[in-house]
C-alpha cells in the first residue's frame, strides 16, 4: 500500500464537533470554557456558519420562568413533557431539561439575545400546544435565528475553529474509542481526515427522508447513519413527529412550517364547512392540544372530505388585526405574502401536517450525553430518548441548549481525564485501509472513475434523483401519521429494492461541490435510517404519541418500552428495554 493517499489533507484536534447548529455551537462554547492544556476544538458543518436548521425554529424556547404565568415551575414543565411524550421519555433527561432550561434562557440574554418583553420588562412568554402555562420565550417568530446568532458571537470570541462546507462521511473508532473522522471538503473537493480524541455529534435530524417536511434541505440524517455504522445504539427511531401545520400550497413550499405560535397567539383551525373541528377531537384544549393529536385531527378531516382545495384545512388569525400579526408573527406574514400571495391579516391560510422532528435518535447517557462508544457524545435532534413519543413545541430549543452545553462539558471532562495522544490513524494499516475504502466508496459514485458508465454517460447519471424521490414518497405514503404492518412492510420492500439499485448509481462531475454526488451520499444514509424507522415501527404493535398504528390503535401498558436499534454483524438488531421507573419524588409531581 502506498504511504500517501491523493487529495487527502490531515488535520489534528482534540474535540471535533459535527454540526454547526444550536447544539453544536453551545457544545463548542462549553467545551472551550472547560478545556485544559489549550485543547483544540473544531466545529465542522456541511453548510456555512449560521445557516444550520436552527434558523428555522420559530415559536420559541420552553422554560418555566413564570414571567407571564407566575404559577409555572419546573415541576409543571416536567409533568407536561413526560405526559405528552406518553410516558416513553427518559425521566432523567426530562428532569435535567426542565430544571436547566431557565438558566439557559437567561444565559442567552447575557450573550446579547433580545427576547420580546412584557410591560414590566420581563421576558414575554406565549402559549403553546399542551403546555399548561404560557411558557415559550420568543423573539417574534424568529427565535431560532436569534439563538444561533448569539451563540455564534460567543464562538467568534473564542479560539474555536469553524470548518464550513465540510461534509463528514465516516467516523472511525479503534477498540471502541473514537479516533477520528473523514469528510469531503465541498469547496476544494479534497478529502479531509481529522484525527481527534472525542466527537460531539450535533448534526440534527432526518426530516428530508420525507417528501413533505418543514426541515432544511440539509437535514438528511447523516449523523444518525454514521453513528449507526460504527455500532452506536439508536432509540425510539419509529417516533417521527408530524407538525400539524405546514404550508400545502404552492408546491415549491409544500411542507414549510407554519408556526404553532399562530395557534398560540389565538389562531383557529377550520374545515371546508367553516367548522372549528378541533371541538370534535379535543373539546378542552382545542387547537392547543399536543402536536400528535392536532396533526391526526387535521389528517382525519382531510381524509373524510372536509379538506380545502389544496388538501389542507384552514388556519385563521385574521381576527387579531394587522398590527398585532405583523408584530408577533412577522415571518409568517411575509412567508404567506411572498410565497402564496395570501395576506394572513385578512385571509385564511391553508395548512396540513408536515414532518417536523425526529424524537428518536442516538441513545445517550441522560446526564453526560455519552453514547455506548467511548468519546462519542451526542446532543440535539440527533440524540433520542428525551421527548419520548411526542415532542412539545419549544422543548427542542431548550434541548439543544441544555444538552448541547452538557455534551460540551462532559466531552471536555472526558478528554481532560483521558490524556492519551491523538491516535495516528495513518500509522495503523487496518485503519488506513478503512480510509482507502471510504474514499473509494465515495469516488465509486463518480462515472469519472468508471469505464462502464462512460458509455451511457448521459442516461444513467440522474437515476439517483429518481431513487431519492421514490424513497421520499414511499416514506410519505407508507410511514406516515397513521401506519399499519401492511404499509410498513410495503415501504420496507421498496427500500430494499432501492438499496439494490444503489450499487450501480453513477453521477457526472468531480468531488468538488457536486450536488449529484451529495445526493448519492444522502440516499445511502437515508436508506439506513429509513430501515431503522420502519423496522422499529413494525415492532411497536401499539399506538403511542406520534406513532399511530391503524392495526393496533390502542396504547398498551405492556409497551412502556423503548426500542433500541443497533448494527450487529452488518444487520439491524432490535432490542426492547423497559422504560425506567420514576423516582418517588417525580411520581408525586405527576400525581399532583
Amino acid at each position, binding site marked *: 500500500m502506498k504511504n500517501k493517499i491523493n487529495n487527502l489533507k490531515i488535520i489534528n484536534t482534540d474535540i471535533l464537533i459535527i454540526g454547526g447548529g444550536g447544539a453544536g455551537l453551545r457544545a463548542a462554547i462549553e467545551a472551550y470554557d472547560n478545556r485544559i492544556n489549550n485543547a483544540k476544538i473544531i466545529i465542522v458543518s456541511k453548510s456555512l456558519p449560521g445557516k444550520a436548521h436552527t434558523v428555522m425554529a420559530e415559536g420559541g424556547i420552553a422554560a418555566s420562568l413564570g414571567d407571564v404565568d407566575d404559577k409555572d415551575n419546573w415541576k409543571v414543565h416536567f409533568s407536561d413533557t413526560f405526559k405528552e411524550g406518553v410516558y416513553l421519555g427518559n425521566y432523567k433527561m426530562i428532569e435535567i431539561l426542565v430544571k436547566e432550561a431557565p438558566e439557559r434562557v437567561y444565559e442567552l440574554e447575557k450573550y446579547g439575545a433580545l427576547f420580546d418583553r412584557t410591560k414590566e420588562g420581563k421576558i414575554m412568554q406565549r402559549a403553546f400546544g399542551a403546555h399548561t402555562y404560557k411558557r415559550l420565550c420568543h423573539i417574534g417568530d424568529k427565535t431560532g435565528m436569534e439563538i444561533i446568532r448569539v451563540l455564534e458571537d460567543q464562538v467568534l470570541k473564542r479560539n474555536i475553529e469553524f470548518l464550513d462546507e465540510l461534509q463528514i462521511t465516516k467516523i472511525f473508532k479503534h477498540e471502541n474509542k473514537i479516533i477520528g473522522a473523514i469528510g469531503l471538503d465541498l469547496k476544494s473537493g479534497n478529502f479531509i481526515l481529522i484525527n481527534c480524541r472525542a466527537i460531539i455529534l450535533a448534526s440534527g435530524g432526518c426530516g428530508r427522508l420525507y417528501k413533505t417536511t418543514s426541515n432544511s434541505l440539509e437535514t438528511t440524517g447523516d449523523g444518525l447513519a454514521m453513528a449507526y455504522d460504527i455500532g452506536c445504539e439508536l432509540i425510539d427511531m419509529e417516533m417521527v413527529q408530524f407538525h400539524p401545520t405546514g404550508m400545502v400550497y404552492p408546491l415549491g413550499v409544500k411542507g414549510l412550517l407554519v408556526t404553532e405560535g399562530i395557534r398560540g397567539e389565538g389562531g383557529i383551525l377550520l374545515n371546508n364547512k367553516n367548522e372549528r373541528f378541533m371541538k370534535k377531537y379535543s373539546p378542552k384544549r382545542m387547537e392547543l392540544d399536543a402536536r400528535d393529536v392536532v396533526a391526526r385531527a387535521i389528517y382525519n378531516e382531510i381524509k373524510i372530505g372536509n379538506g380545502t382545495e389544496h388538501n389542507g384545512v384552514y388556519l385563521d388569525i385574521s381576527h387579531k388585526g394587522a398590527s398585532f400579526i405583523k408584530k408577533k408573527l412577522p415571518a409568517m406574514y411575509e412567508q404567506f405574502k411572498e410565497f402564496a400571495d395570501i395576506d394572513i391579516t385578512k385571509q385564511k391560510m391553508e395548512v396540513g401536517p408536515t414532518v417536523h422532528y425526529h424524537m428518536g435518535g442516538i441513545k445517550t447517557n441522560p446526564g453526560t450525553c455519552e453514547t455506548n462508544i467511548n468519546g462519542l457524545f451526542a446532543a440535539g435532534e440527533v440524540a433520542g430518548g428525551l421527548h419520548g413519543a411526542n415532542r412539545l413545541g419549544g422543548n427542542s430549543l431548550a434541548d439543544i441548549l441544555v444538552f448541547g452545553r452538557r455534551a460540551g462539558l462532559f466531552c471536555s471532562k472526558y478528554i481532560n481525564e483521558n490524556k492519551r495522544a491523538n491516535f495516528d490513524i495513518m500509522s495503523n494499516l487496518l485503519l488506513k485501509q478503512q480510509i482507502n475504502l471510504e474514499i473509494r466508496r465515495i469516488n465509486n459514485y463518480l462515472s469519472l472513475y468508471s469505464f462502464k458508465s462512460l458509455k451511457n454517460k448521459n442516461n444513467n447519471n440522474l437515476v439517483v434523483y429518481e431513487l431519492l424521490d421514490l424513497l421520499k414518497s414511499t416514506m410519505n405514503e407508507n410511514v406516515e401519521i397513521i401506519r399499519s404492518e401492511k404499509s410498513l412492510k410495503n415501504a420496507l420492500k421498496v427500500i430494499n429494492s432501492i438499496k439494490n439499485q444503489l450499487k450501480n448509481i453513477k453521477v457526472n462531475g468531480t468531488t468538488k461541490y457536486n450536488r*449529484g454526488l451529495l445526493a448519492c451520499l444522502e440516499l445511502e444514509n437515508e436508506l439506513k435510517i429509513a430501515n431503522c424507522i420502519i423496522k422499529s415501527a413494525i415492532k411497536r404493535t401499539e399506538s403511542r404519541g406520534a406513532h399511530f398504528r391503524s392495526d393496533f390503535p390502542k396504547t398498551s401498558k405492556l409497551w412502556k418500552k423503548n426500542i433500541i436499534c443497533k448494527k450487529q454483524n452488518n444487520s439491524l438488531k432490535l432490542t426492547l428495554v423497559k422504560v425506567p421507573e420514576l423516582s418517588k419524588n417525580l411520581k408525586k409531581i405527576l400525581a399532583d
Partner: protein
Amino acid sequence: MNKIIKIYKSQENKFKEFEVPIQEGMVVLDAVIYILEHFDSTISVRWNCKAARCGSCGAEINGLPKLMCKTRIDSIKEDIEIKPLKIFKNVQDIVVDVSDTWEIKKKMPGFEIINKFSNKNISTKEMKIYEIDVERAQEFKKCIECFLCLDSCHVIREHKTNYIGPMHVVKTASFDMNPIDKKIRIDFLDKNGIRYCNVTKCCTEVCPAHIKITDNAIIPEKERINDKKIL
C-alpha cells in the same frame, strides 16, 4: 408553460441554457433543482433552508442580487439568467467563497454586557429590559446574512477600499443598539471604511429581510462617528 433558464457554468465560462416546465408559485431555486434532477446534476449551487431564512442561495438573477428561494419565476417576464454574486471569488458555477465575511466578524468587537447585568448571579427579575428599547436592535437582528447587500454595494463592487460593507454595519449596529451592550464600536467602523458609503441605499433595496440598512444602521453609525470627532 416552459421557461428558459440560463445558468453560469464556471468551467466553460459560459451560460448553459435549459427549458424548465413551470408550475404556479414556483421560485427560481425550484427551477434550479429541477435542472439538477432532470438535466445536469453537476451544477454547483449552494442552498439550505429554501424558505428565505438562512440566506445561502443568493445569486445575481438577471443582474440583480436576489435569493433564489424567494424569487418567484412569475415575477420575471424575460428569460432567467443566473450568475454568481460578483464581489466574491468564484468557487464553482453559482457557488462563491464568502469566507472573508467570517474573518470580518472575528475582528468586530462583539457584544459585551453592561456592568449592572454582568454579575453572574443576577436573576432575571433584576434584569428589566423594556420593549421600547429592544425594538431598535431587533430590526437588525432580522438580518439573515445573505450577502446580497454586499454584492449590491457599489463601493465594494467598483472600488478597492477597506469598507466592510452594509451587512457588517448592520451586525455592528445590532450590537451598538442593543440596550444592554456597553462597547463602543465607532473606531472599528471608522477604520473599516464606513465613510466610503455615500448612502445610495442600494443595500436597502435588495435586502430580503426589509431592513432599512442605510437609514437605520449606516446613517446613525456615521453620525455617531462625526459626533465623536467633533467633540
